[in-house]
């Protein structure tokens, strides 16, 4: 119980720090408080000044953050300056889209990446290793905008694009981990004793690399949410990634603080969960 309480405290502290750091970064960035609407030549000086004043009304970032936390406790996430709508409504509408994208993309990218790595290790053919290495290299080198266009041309779903972004990282780490573990003495002994490749993989290799795989899974969650931003922006998916980009370009501090808190929460919870799994007695005994 005490372990869970400590974990919960850690999550809360990190999330609060994340929100504060996000607020500071946005506030000190140039362009904060400006509005594209000011450049409208129809507006007279009075209107422009009123517009500037309304964007400058926000006080120092500590005061802003405390005020924000107070509202958060009441369930009020604030109003988005760029989209003129409650942040809670925006998140409610868009989070499911990102969840679908990330879930599908992460699952597929992970499944393909690990499968390719396992296939490479088990088959142990240099040619296959070469081919998969090349394929992954090509995927890494293709700019996201080219991939997005190719996907649209081929009428493939945008969720696959995220899988393509994640796959090379998962494959590369998995392949290297599995390859280096394959040369451990106990694995060689198991092979020499005539055990099948599947058995060697499941009982002798995997338990060794499991902690790193679990760590990789936690990190991939964070990578997936980060990668969702350009994917959603390029493919016009109305998720929180696209929202984050719009908020960044509009210096929308309310929206950005909420998004930072959300991403921090997901990252910390995901990685903490993976830490707990790594530390579970079964892995430690292995």
């Amino acid at each position, binding site marked *: 119980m005490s372990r869970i309480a400590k974990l919960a405290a850690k999550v809360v502290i990190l999330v609060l720090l994340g929100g504060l750091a996000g607020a500071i*970064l*946005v506030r000190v960035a140039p362009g904060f408080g400006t509005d594209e609407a000011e450049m409208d030549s129809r507006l007279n000086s009075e209107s422009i000044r009123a517009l500037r004043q309304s964007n400058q009304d926000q006080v120092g970032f500590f005061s802003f953050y405390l005020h924000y936390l107070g509202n958060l406790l009441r369930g009020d996430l604030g109003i988005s300056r760029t989209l003129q709508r409650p942040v809670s409504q925006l998140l409610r509408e868009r989070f499911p889209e990102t969840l679908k994208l990330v879930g599908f993309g992460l699952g597929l990218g992970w499944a393909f990446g690990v499968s390719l790595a396992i296939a490479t290790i088990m088959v142990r053919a240099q040619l296959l290793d070469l081919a998969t290495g090349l394929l992954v*290299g090509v995927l890494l080198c293709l700019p*996201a905008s080219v991939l997005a266009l190719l996907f649209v041309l081929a009428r493939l779903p945008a969720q696959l694009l995220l899988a393509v972004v994640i796959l090379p990282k998962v494959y*590369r780490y998995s392949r290297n981990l599995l*390859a280096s573990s394959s040369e451990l003495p106990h694995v060689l002994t198991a092979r020499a004793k005539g055990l099948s490749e599947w058995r060697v993989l499941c009982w002798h290799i995997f338990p060794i690399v499991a902690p790193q795989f679990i760590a990789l899974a936690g990190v991939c969650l964070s990578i997936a949410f980060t990668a969702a931003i350009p994917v959603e922006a390029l493919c016009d998916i109305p998720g929180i990634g696209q929202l984050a980009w719009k908020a960044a370009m509009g210096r929308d501090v309310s929206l*950005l603080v909420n998004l930072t808190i959300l991403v921090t929460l997901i*990252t910390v919870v995901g990685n903490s969960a993976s830490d707990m799994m790594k530390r579970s007695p079964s892995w430690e005994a292995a």
Partner: protein
Amino acid sequence: MKWLRAAAMSLLVVVTVASLVPQLLSGASYARQFRDLPDSPPSRQHLLGTDDLGRDRLSRLLYGTRVSLLLAPAAALLTTALAAFIGGIAGFEGGRLEKIIMGATDLFLSLPWLFLLITVRAALPLNVSPGASLVITFVLLGCLGWAGAARVICAAARSIAGSDFILLARASGDGGFRMLWRHLLPNLRPIVLAQFWLAVPAFILTEANLGVLGLGVSEPLPSWGSLLKDLGTFSGMPGSPWRFAPLILFIVVVSSFHFVLSTEELPA
């Protein structure tokens, strides 16, 4: 696969040399605009044709190679070193130090660093030299890209920390930096190399996207990233295949890096 490694190494050498003496392969400057020949196909005068402003594509490709080939691996090295150092120490020491470092890493992964980049750009004078802007960009990328790999390295380091050879090293009196350098890092090599190899193309592509913030390469200096940015457009679709030369070279070089660096050959 030694022949493959040798071939990849030779290719990298050829590309590097070509990028250092571009004037031998292409007579035109990378900046000169041949305004009578915008978007022209390959010809004797311009082997890869010209871009939308009439600049020689081959020349820009070679100069861009110099920029990207030098700086992206350097930034990747920086980020890998940071990840190895931070993750390695955290995993090796364990306990409270690991918790604090990993907590900070999680925080680092979550923050919108875009604004730091924008702030850095604002702090730089507008007339900063293209070279300085470029170096600053890649240093920033190097300093910001370590967090994900640090986590994985930390997990690996923790599993090594309890190994027999580590206990033996400790018993022999090894500790601190020596332990890290001689015993830990060599055993983390597979992950460290994976991180390096992944970071190189990522930084090249990211540099191009940083143009949105005023960072990265400024005109007329080319880079692979800026050359590749033009490919993802409707108007660039099949009809002018020579435009894909930077992409092909990029893939070839990254793959060559992979073959040169790959020491984990599959056991026979």
